[in-house]
């Protein structure tokens, strides 16, 4: 290798096909990685500041705007936090509807990510658009499934993005039972499409990089934890109550990232589909465990690129689990419940699993029930530190074994595997090979 090839820098500015703005800068000198930083360059949006002054029930509705693709998760984490602050109860019916709403959005998000954002990398095309010509069946299936997931959210929440039918304690307007029955019928009919999604995922050649880290997710005694539970760490095997979230996330700020960073028992941790599948594999729907086996995903899995496959496993889980929950709703019917509440002071924390991982919201309310303090710790904030450490661990091996454009591609793919939605934190990615 002459020195021209062995000394270079890669700058991936505003990496495409991820939601948000980030950049990766890698300096390579004489074939060695000298420096690597993952910068999140998105502007601050100050939700935690301007939530002040809002009424309790306005909080979930507004903070859903933190992220379009995980708006439901933000609404729910905020609802749970405000309910904890005010001591409000949530009925079994509302809980069931929330779980359905949450799983419908996980379907939307994972389908979008797998088909639109990740598959093009593995097929070797720059976007989903060329696939419309070369793989029309795949694209049509992707659009069909995505459309179904959107309508699923819309039937439960009033619309696919920033739904408004759900609020504190429950539903302002209950979903229409006929529309629910129709969604159930279409979900059932789509099961072959979900199976075909597993087949596509199986054909993807996942890069072979492993680095063990701490996997953090919710855990629930009776269900695969997406809506509820306590916080489980793979490092300690212990459960921590959600209200102790500050001891979990330990957020800190670095100058090259407008998203905060987090660490818990070691230098960094991972949240998201792979963390959940690793931590709670036995509670997945049997069909999802079967999909994991088909995909060669054995837990614990320490390859972050496998997060894409873990998402496919969760797609299968959410499809089957939603069908079971829809059966339950349709069997017992829905009843308009009292969702009134008395405004007042308090403070509370709420957590859910967003598509991209564990999400915390916390609020303090004054006597008139208006917000005086707000905090949100989003999945990407928790992951960026871990992504940078993966990159630092893998980049030297990449640089030693691949040409420059492949190093760039593999770093981009790693970032996209985490499905970072930087817009939440603040935005994401550029790789700079510095000369």
């Amino acid at each position, binding site marked *: 290798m002459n020195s021209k090839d062995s000394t270079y820098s890669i700058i991936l500015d*505003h990496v*495409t*096909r991820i*939601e*948000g*703005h980030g950049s990766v800068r890698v300096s390579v000198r004489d074939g060695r990685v000298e420096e690597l930083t993952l*910068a999140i*360059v*998105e*502007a*601050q*949006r*100050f939700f*935690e*500041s*301007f939530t002040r*002054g*809002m009424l309790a029930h*306005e909080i979930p509705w*507004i903070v859903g*705007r*933190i*992220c*379009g*693709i995980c*708006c439901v998760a933000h609404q729910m984490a905020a609802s749970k936090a405000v309910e904890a602050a005010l001591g409000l109860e949530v009925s079994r019916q509302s809980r069931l509807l929330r779980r359905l709403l949450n799983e419908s959005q996980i379907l939307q998000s994972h389908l*979008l990510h797998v088909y*639109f*954002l990740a598959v093009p990398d593995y097929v070797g095309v*720059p*976007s*989903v*658009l060329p696939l*419309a010509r070369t793989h029309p069946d795949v*694209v*049509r299936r992707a*659009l*069909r499934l*995505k*459309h179904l997931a*959107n309508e699923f959210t819309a039937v439960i*929440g*009033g*619309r696919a*993005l*920033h*739904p*408004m*039918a759900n*609020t504190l304690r429950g*539903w*302002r*307007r209950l979903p229409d039972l006929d529309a629910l029955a129709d969604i159930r019928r279409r979900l059932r009919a789509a099961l072959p499409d979900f199976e075909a999604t597993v087949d596509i995922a199986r054909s993807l050649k996942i890069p072979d990089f492993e680095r063990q880290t701490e996997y953090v997710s919710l855990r629930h005694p009776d269900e695969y934890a997406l809506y509820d539970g306590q916080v489980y760490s793979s490092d300690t095997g212990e459960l921590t109550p959600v209200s102790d979230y500050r001891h979990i996330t330990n957020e*800190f*700020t670095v*100058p*090259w990232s*407008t998203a905060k960073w987090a660490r818990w028992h070691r230098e960094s941790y991972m949240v998201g589909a792979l963390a959940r599948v690793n931590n709670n594999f036995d509670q997945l729907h049997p069909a999802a465990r079967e999909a994991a086996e088909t995909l060669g995903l054995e837990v614990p899995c320490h390859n972050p690129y496998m997060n894409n496959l873990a998402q496919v496993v969760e797609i299968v889980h959410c499809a089957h689990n939603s069908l079971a929950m829809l059966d339950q709703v349709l069997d017992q019917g829905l009843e308009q419940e009292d969702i009134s509440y008395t405004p007042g002071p308090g403070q509370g924390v709420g957590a859910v699993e967003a598509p991209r991982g564990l999400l915390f919201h916390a609020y303090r309310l004054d006597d008139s029930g208006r917000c005086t303090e707000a905090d949100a710790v989003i999945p990407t904030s928790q992951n960026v530190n871990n992504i940078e450490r993966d990159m630092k661990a893998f980049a030297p091996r990449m640089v030693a074994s691949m040409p420059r454009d492949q190093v760039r591609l593999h770093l981009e793919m790693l970032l996209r595997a985490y499905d970072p939605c930087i*817009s939440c934190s603040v*935005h994401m990615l550029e790789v700079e090979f510095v000369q």
Partner: protein
Amino acid sequence: MKNVLLRPRISFFDMAGCEGCQLAILDCEDIFLELVDLVEIVEFREAMSETAPRFDIAFVEGSIHREIDADRLRDIRARSRWLVALGGCACHGNVQARANGWSPAENLQRVHGLDTVHRVQTDNRYWPLWAHTRVRALHEVVKVDYLLRGCPVDRDEFLHLVKRLLAGSRPGFAAQPVCVECRRHGHECVFLHGETCLGQVTWGGCGAVCIAGGYRCDGCRGLLPNANLASHRQLLRERGLDPKTIDQRYRLFLSGEITAQDAPDEQ
């Protein structure tokens, strides 16, 4: 002058926003393939790796919070024939304009803490990332040709705009309140059951979707050009809302459009 475009080059950009408006466009599943035939999407960071030097239509989501983003917007403006503000954040700042109720320094301090803010703002390499200004709508920085309102935007309005521009005619949206759509769809007015609503002073075009979903209109699509806020305020007073609550309601989505005169009672 008719000026029909053959397969115009269109592009999508995002400033500070939730990216929901771009998703709403990606969510046009049924027309996605048709659209791909009609236009050439040359830049869409959320869905594509490619970038392009020039385009016919640039859709820009989000509001402007820093000078480095204002520069990016000026560059997009210079490369595009038409520039469309995509969604409430781009049109008027939306909920994010609430941040202008405090100084950027105070907002930063609340989120990151004073010591940290001082450290990052004085970092010689990265300070531009942290140099926040007041939250601005796109038109406060560059000329905007068309507005697509809503949080998120309405897909039918998006399609209408693209098809009109394709046909060489001017897209237009009726300046009528959300109430018109409530009547058209037969929704019972929320005032009838004791709730209050901003639909009378808000640009329609969303199909009154929030009323359909059992809620009220909070005004995400922006104030109508001749909205009579004085009489709307009076109506809310009669329904028992105190002045401060009214101001706060206006300031949920409309902080970028409400003046100190419109909301005099907020402390």
